[in-house]
């Protein structure tokens, strides 16, 4: 099976096992370390949010400014010494327990100029509350800054449903619970390797056997590792929940002592950044068992998914190294190192500039990204295939209006697609036939001044196409455009070209036709001139007519040159953004929009980035299908 002898495969599977386990265990270890730090971090933040919400609700109830200050200093008294409270209303520092705010700087006072960020933060929170009331992507109503283990949190103050200010609270750091030692993972790794060494020494050196043994050992070690770590993670999660509940209970107790009120719902203080309650903790400060368990489950399941992915990668490494794949790749790299060195910059360039944006665009197409939520990570905006379903699943491109007329829905994908196809076909047909005709004319023997004609006919192609587009747009002006003036000479009524889809389409077709025939003409002319003259002579001797000569000699000889030109031209026309955007601008009512301009409008006029990305991905899919089919057809033509 393996190209090298059996003893080599013994070592290979050993190395494969080592690599596989390193990927799975070391990678898993690093991942879980991150996850646990994140978990602890999140719980610290959530406890700080409970505290700031508790403080906010108490300060919000205070009747006057003096009351606020009294309450804040009392609150400070019930909390650990590092706690700092600041209450800001408009440009005034209403109350503060910060040692810096004493003496001349004691509250109440106007905020100093360098304290502008505090004022801006209060305004930002207010704007967040206001826009969350209107709906849409949730904005932060609570801001958290990490200062090592301490948390600086800010929450809005509300009175009668209006935001009146902000409380800022510094929650001092608490001692960390400490990490988990990596001894278990290292032991598992060593143990699996030793077992393999023993087995490889004892067993006959057959590839299949070695593969089975090493895979089994890998799975065993991975299973032990995953099981142990998940349990530890579950415990950490439960500790976090408990600590949160005790924070809530403590805050409820302090609030009772400070205000004398008995009915206090501490559960409502455990919120996310948009101040939506998580619902994990009940009013009195106990954990809702079911929800707590569900959340622990979620955490474990998330970790399990990542760990299994890593294990699969590790197994892949094991198999690749074990069966000699890595060896072969390594040898190829060494043998052809010059070639790889040469293309390395290109690979890096295309990865960065082509593949990354491409993949990012595809990822974006599965989200609900728009101008209001670009601050959120894509995973939180994930909507799966919804964009595609909305685009492709909407077949209502034709409906009956109240007066019985059929009305097209021009914003529908299928209308735009249909229009794009019609647009592409008519343009290419026109470009090829007219270009070919002109080429035939120019190819006439003994034609006087041929170079001049040729230059003149290539000119439209040489001009920047947006200038041409704007000139043509002007020519179709209703009152002053040259087209209508010519029509008027012949006694026709002037037309409003951009008022009906068909005439609007004609303007774009005329413009693009003007731009596209020179290319086809140049291609055909070149091919025509390479047809040997004796073919025609022989045909004439045989008594063939001009038409027969054209059918039997000219067209077949043109084919190798024309087919690639047509393929290119189809792709260009399909994505001919400039002409549509500048000449018709989609008028009337988006009826002459092609797919690419429509995608642009979704992204930059309607700000629906995710939707536009899905649109672009569909365009890519269509062109991919076209390209594949075309490729096959071309290969068939080449074979002829």
């Amino acid at each position, binding site marked *: 099976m393996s190209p090298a002898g059996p003893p080599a495969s013994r070592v290979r599977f050993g190395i494969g096992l080592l690599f596989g386990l390193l990927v799975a265990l070391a990678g898993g270890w690093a991942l879980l370390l991150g996850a646990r730090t994140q978990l602890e971090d999140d719980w610290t933040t959530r406890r700080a949010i409970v505290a700031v919400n508790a403080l906010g609700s108490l300060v919000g109830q205070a009747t006057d400014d003096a009351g606020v200050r009294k309450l804040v200093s009392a609150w400070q008294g019930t909390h650990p010494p590092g706690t700092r409270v600041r209450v800001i209303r408009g440009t005034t520092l209403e109350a503060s327990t910060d040692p810096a705010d004493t003496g001349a700087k004691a509250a109440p006072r106007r905020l100093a100029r360098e304290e502008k960020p505090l004022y801006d933060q209060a*305004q930002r929170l207010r704007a967040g509350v206001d826009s969350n009331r209107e709906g849409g992507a949730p904005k932060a109503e609570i801001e958290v800054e990490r200062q090592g283990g301490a948390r600086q949190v800010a929450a809005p103050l509300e009175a009668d449903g209006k935001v009146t200010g902000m409380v800022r609270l510094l929650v001092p750091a608490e001692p960390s619970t400490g990490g988990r030692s990596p001894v278990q993972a290292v032991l598992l790794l060593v143990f699996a390797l030793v077992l393999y060494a023993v087995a490889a020494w004892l067993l006959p050196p057959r590839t299949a056997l070695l593969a089975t043994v090493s895979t089994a050992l890998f799975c065993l070690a991975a299973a032990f590792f995953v099981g142990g770590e998940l349990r530890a993670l579950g415990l950490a999660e439960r500790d976090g929940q408990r600590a949160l509940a005790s924070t809530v209970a403590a805050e409820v107790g302090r609030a009772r002592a400070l205000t004398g009120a008995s009915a206090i719902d501490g559960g409502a203080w455990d919120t996310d950044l948009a101040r939506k309650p998580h619902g994990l903790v009940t009013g009195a400060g106990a954990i809702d068992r079911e929800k707590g368990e569900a959340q622990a489950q979620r955490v474990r399941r998330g970790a399990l998914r990542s760990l299994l992915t890593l294990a699969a990668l590790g197994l892949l490494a094991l198999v690749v190294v074990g069966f000699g794949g890595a060896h072969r790749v390594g040898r190829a790299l060494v043998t052809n190192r010059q070639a790889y060195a040469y293309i390395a910059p290109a690979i890096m360039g295309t990865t960065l500039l082509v593949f990354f944006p491409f993949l990012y665009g595809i990822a974006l197409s599965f989200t609900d990204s*728009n101008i209001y939520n670009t601050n959120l990570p894509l995973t939180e905006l994930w909507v799966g295939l919804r964009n595609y379903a909305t685009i492709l699943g909407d077949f209502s491109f034709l409906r009956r209006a109240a007066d019985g007329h059929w009305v097209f829905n021009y914003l529908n994908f299928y209308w735009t697609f249909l229009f794009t196809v019609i647009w592409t076909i008519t343009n290419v047909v026109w470009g090829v036939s007219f270009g070919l005709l002109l080429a035939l004319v120019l190819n006439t023997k003994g034609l006087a001044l041929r170079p001049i004609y040729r230059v003149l006919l290539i000119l439209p192609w040489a001009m920047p196409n947006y200038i041409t587009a704007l000139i043509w747009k002007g020519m179709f002006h209703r009152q002053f455009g040259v087209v209508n003036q010519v029509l008027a000479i012949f006694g026709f009524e002037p037309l*409003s070209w951009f*008022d009906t889809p068909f005439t609007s389409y004609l303007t774009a077709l005329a413009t693009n036709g003007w731009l596209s025939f020179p290319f086809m003409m140049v291609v055909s002319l070149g091919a025509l001139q390479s047809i040997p003259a004796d073919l025609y002579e022989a045909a004439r001797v045989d008594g063939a007519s001009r038409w027969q000569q054209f059918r039997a000699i000219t067209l077949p000889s043109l084919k190798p040159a024309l087919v690639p030109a047509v393929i290119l031209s189809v792709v260009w026309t399909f994505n001919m953004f400039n002409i549509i955007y500048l000449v018709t601008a989609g008028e009337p009512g988006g009826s002459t929009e092609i797919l690419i301009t429509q995608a642009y409008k979704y992204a930059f006029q*309607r700000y629906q980035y995710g939707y536009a990305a899905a649109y672009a991905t569909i365009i890519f899919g269509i062109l991919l299908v076209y390209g594949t089919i075309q490729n096959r057809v071309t290969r068939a033509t080449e074979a002829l």
Partner: protein
Amino acid sequence: MRTLFVLLAAVAGILMPGAAAAQAKLVVWHSYRGGEKSAFEKVVGAFNARPDTKIKVDALAVPFDAFADKISAAVPRGKGPDIFIYAQDRMGGWVEAGNTVEPIDFYVDDALKGRFIPTTVEALTYRGNLYGLPLDYKVIALIHNRKLLKTPPRTTGELVKVAQGLTNRPAGKFGLAWSYGDFYYVASLLNGFGGGVFDKATRPTMNAPENVKALDLLVKWEKAGFMPAEPSSALITSLFNEGKAAMVFSGPWFLGEVASDIDYGVAPLPTIDEAGGQPMRPWMTVEGVFVSAQSQHKDAAFEFAKYVTGAEAGKVMALEGRQSPAAKAVYDDPKVQADPVLSAFRKQVEVAVPMPNVAEMTMMWSPATTALNKVNAGNSPREAMDVAQKALQKDVDALRKKK
């Protein structure tokens, strides 16, 4: 050796604080050209020459086409200027995108706010927060050829009568030429009737009855035949310059294109008889001086913003740059008062409406233009606006939707 060390420390001690505090070097981006540019540069020069300031400002002209996109791309990444000058229409988008414009509410007291025409401050306020100081405003007004028309009409009734009298279609002469295919211009009628495109909570109100009534009036004007068909801005300019259009509704940008041999006057837009004598209320664009959220010298940048939006600078901008400053005190200057153009725009701005600065504005243009084209092609305004409302509502909802 030791002495050298002490010497070095002393030199460093002299140099370092100096380097930190002596000078804040600011960069300001603007898109002015021609007379506006030289007036602005004069103001910047005057600011730099102030004896009591340690701030130096460099003005950099950036082409207008690329301006907004450049700001969106460069500023959040810390590569942009300290200050930039732009109209309010992109502001909402910048605030929502974050890290672009610095809120300056905190610096601004009532006295400073009182310096400006109130609507210009409103234009630069987004969600209750002020983001820039208003530099100047642009509104459309009635521009008329004084050879053809001595006194401009005050009401729409007069306007129709005068315009019809001055129209001679076979000769290509029109009483009134304006871009009534452009929603920006037509909005002056909609606002005059009390309509608009968004309500206070940024919900679309395209098919509000006031808007429909305004478009009905526009249709009536079109049928009366005193306006040219498909009025592009190039067409309007050439008609006016050839003496074939007696009146034009346009803004200060139009005056730069008027031929030198045309004797023109500027007057406020007429009041609308059909709306009970309410004035036409054009959309006003306000150029704000914005402090970049990434600037290292925000205080200094605000100092400069305060200076350029002040009365002194305003006078230079008005008389030499031919702009309409937002500072009220500028218009007390006798030279400015004597200028018929500046005072006409000043009168017009009293009834102008700040163009909405919400990000949703960019979505409005396409359905609104489509509706307007339909109306101009003879369809019913009611239906056209219903369709526009539906389209806009759909787009706005797509942004507001919760996942």
